[in-house]
């Protein structure tokens, strides 16, 4: 499989983040194509492209746009989910640093399609440089007449606000994000109604991931056929894969859907010298881990699901044999406990309990019944929590024990740090310390 840099094609240019750098390669040309179409035809085009949400759930984007009731007399909103906080996910922030105008152009086209005149880009607060660059891109777009009223004589008006979060993973969940954007605690809302019907200010709202929206201009320019020529029927197109962990050359690789982990691993220079793969997590900590036997599974929504995990954010984390799976899982659970919004009982109390149990295992003071209990408590959370954060928290341990039951059982007598020297796992092992 070849690499297919589209969004990342010009990241090596010093001014890739500026409007000039973007326009040099045809940036904002998609706007004219879109404006020449009826909004519904733009939705149709995105439907035909088969683009699926890159925020994790993979919901078909064109279909989502099509849910927005038209002619309802209410304002419509587009909200870009740039909260990227999922452990392991690191694609949207690089994209915003290097190519923010693709996002802005996508925002304009998407807003035009759903007939929104106000769009918000909700960026997690901890990434000021990404905030700077997106805000600057928005300012440049205003100055160039791509935003504001009657954009390029299309008769279409659009205001874009860049909004920063303040440190809460849950605000990546789309309804929590909307509450946060409305100035509330970022806690998820009851669904239905879905945002497409009653979202921001109870008006029809589309929430899409950064990468999803940024993919739109190239689809508009090149057509649905171009996009569907990549990937599988159910998972068309190209995607930013971000490979991290114990590999020789971690980094961002833009490639077609359907690329395998073996290919990604190859591009990343393989496992670091002298080590072998232990497990990898295909799309953020919220999806079950996979092992060596899954290296040839194509990166499509359907194939990864068939292998027992999920594509998620498509940002594999790779761990070698120096890693204690108990330690990794415990840390993820500490994350979910820290980030549980507190609204619902299973997630709030369940993560509290799981952390207590997992810490025992990590410290070598667990018992066999603790292990059973972790599985049970995970099952007690799964499917009962208010939003998918609870489900996510219930995922790592059952995923891990499927492949590493023996290792986990060692936590009944030996601390993880004694089983796996933490220093050996560091990238600077043997270099300094």
């Amino acid at each position, binding site marked *: *499989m*070849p690499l*297919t*840099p589209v969004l990342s*094609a010009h*990241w*090596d240019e010093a001014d890739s*983040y500026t409007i000039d750098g973007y326009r040099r*390669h*045809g940036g904002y040309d998609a706007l004219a194509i879109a404006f020449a179409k009826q909004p519904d035809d733009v939705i149709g085009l995105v439907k035909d492209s088969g683009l699926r949400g890159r925020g994790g759930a993979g919901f078909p984007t064109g279909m989502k746009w099509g849910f927005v009731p038209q002619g309802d007399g209410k*304002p419509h909103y587009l909200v870009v989910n740039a909260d990227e*906080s999922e*452990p392991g996910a*690191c694609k949207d*922030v690089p994209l915003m640093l290097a190519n923010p105008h693709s996002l802005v152009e996508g925002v304009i086209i998407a807003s035009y399609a759903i007939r929104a005149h*106000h769009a918000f880009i909700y960026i*997690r*607060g*901890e990434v000021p*440089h990404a*905030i*700077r*660059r997106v*805000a*600057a891109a928005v300012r440049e777009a205003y100055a160039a007449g791509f935003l504001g009223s009657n954009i390029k004589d299309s008769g279409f008006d659009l205001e874009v606000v860049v909004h*920063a*979060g*303040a*440190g*809460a993973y849950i605000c990546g969940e789309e309804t929590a994000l909307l509450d946060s954007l409305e*100035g*509330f*605690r*970022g806690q998820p809302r009851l669904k239905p109604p879905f945002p497409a019907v009653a979202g921001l200010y109870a008006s029809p709202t589309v929430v899409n991931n950064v990468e999803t929206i940024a993919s739109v201009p*190239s689809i508009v*320019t*090149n057509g649905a056929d171009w996009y569907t*020529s*990549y*990937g599988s029927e159910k998972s068309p197109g*190209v995607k930013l894969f971000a490979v*991290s*962990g*114990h590999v020789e050359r*971690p*980094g*961002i690789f*833009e*490639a*077609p859907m359907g690329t395998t982990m073996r290919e990604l691993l190859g*591009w990343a220079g393989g496992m670091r010298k002298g080590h072998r793969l232990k497990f990898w997590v295909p799309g953020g*900590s919220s999806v079950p881990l996979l092992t060596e036997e899954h290296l040839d599974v194509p990166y499509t929504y359907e194939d990864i699901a068939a292998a027992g995990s999920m594509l998620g954010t498509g940002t594999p*984390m790779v761990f070698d044999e120096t890693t204690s799976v108990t*330690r990794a899982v415990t*840390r*993820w659970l500490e994350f979910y406990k820290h980030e549980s919004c507190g609204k619902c009982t299973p997630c709030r109390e369940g993560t509290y309990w799981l952390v207590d149990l997992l810490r025992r295992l990590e410290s070598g003071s667990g018992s066999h019944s603790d292990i059973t209990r972790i599985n049970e408590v995970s099952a007690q959370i799964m499917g009962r929590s208010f939003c998918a954060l609870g489900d996510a928290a219930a995922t790592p341990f059952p995923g891990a024990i499927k492949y590493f039951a023996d290792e986990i059982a060692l936590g009944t007598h030996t601390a993880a740090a004694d089983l796996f020297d*933490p*220093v050996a796992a*560091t*990238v600077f092992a043997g270099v300094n310390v």
Partner: protein
Amino acid sequence: MAISETTRAQMREVLVDYPRKRSALMPLLHLAQADEGYISQDSIVVVSEMVELTEAEVTAVSSFYTMYLKRESGRVRVGVCINSLCAVLGGDEIWDSLVDHCGVGNNQTTDDGAVTLERIECQAACTHAPVMTANWEFLDDMTVEKAKQVVDDLRAGQAVQSTRGPVVRTFADAGRTIAGVDDGLTAEGEIRDDRMLAGLRLAQANGDAGRSAEAERQGAVNVKGR
């Protein structure tokens, strides 16, 4: 301290961006925190009046988000990512060594008031692990030695260049940037590193390069996937 007139003016500017006042609550809190160093009682009063909420409603929001602080921190908040990937790749060692080196724990400030250490969650920079931040600017690919050096430099009042971002600024300035105030630093920072460009360079080397929308349209390369 109190919320300055300049900040109040910035707050009023932010307010007009939003269809509803309450939506401006978070940027307003960022601005207030820039002035006060944390979410003070004064901040809550001022912000609650601006967005027409009760002080309890504002407190409910400010206490929900980890970036809004309950107490003042040092000049620079130094974060060490301790989520699984960074932790395993060295974040835990870095953290331990910094705690040792600074003699303070999580959310504590060195006695010179320079640095507050903080355990932070995944920063969307895993390709650059282990990751640290200084007033939220990236410090990528850290080692124990580099981490100590950063802290020493910060304590000595020396400029610290972030990776993929500008020279580390004051906590207050960072807060204003996050709230949306243009700081003129967009062009700062080199982002074209091995990690960011890993795929692109390989593509270029393999002749896969240029498969951008524009290039394809120009027929420069005509290789379809699959």
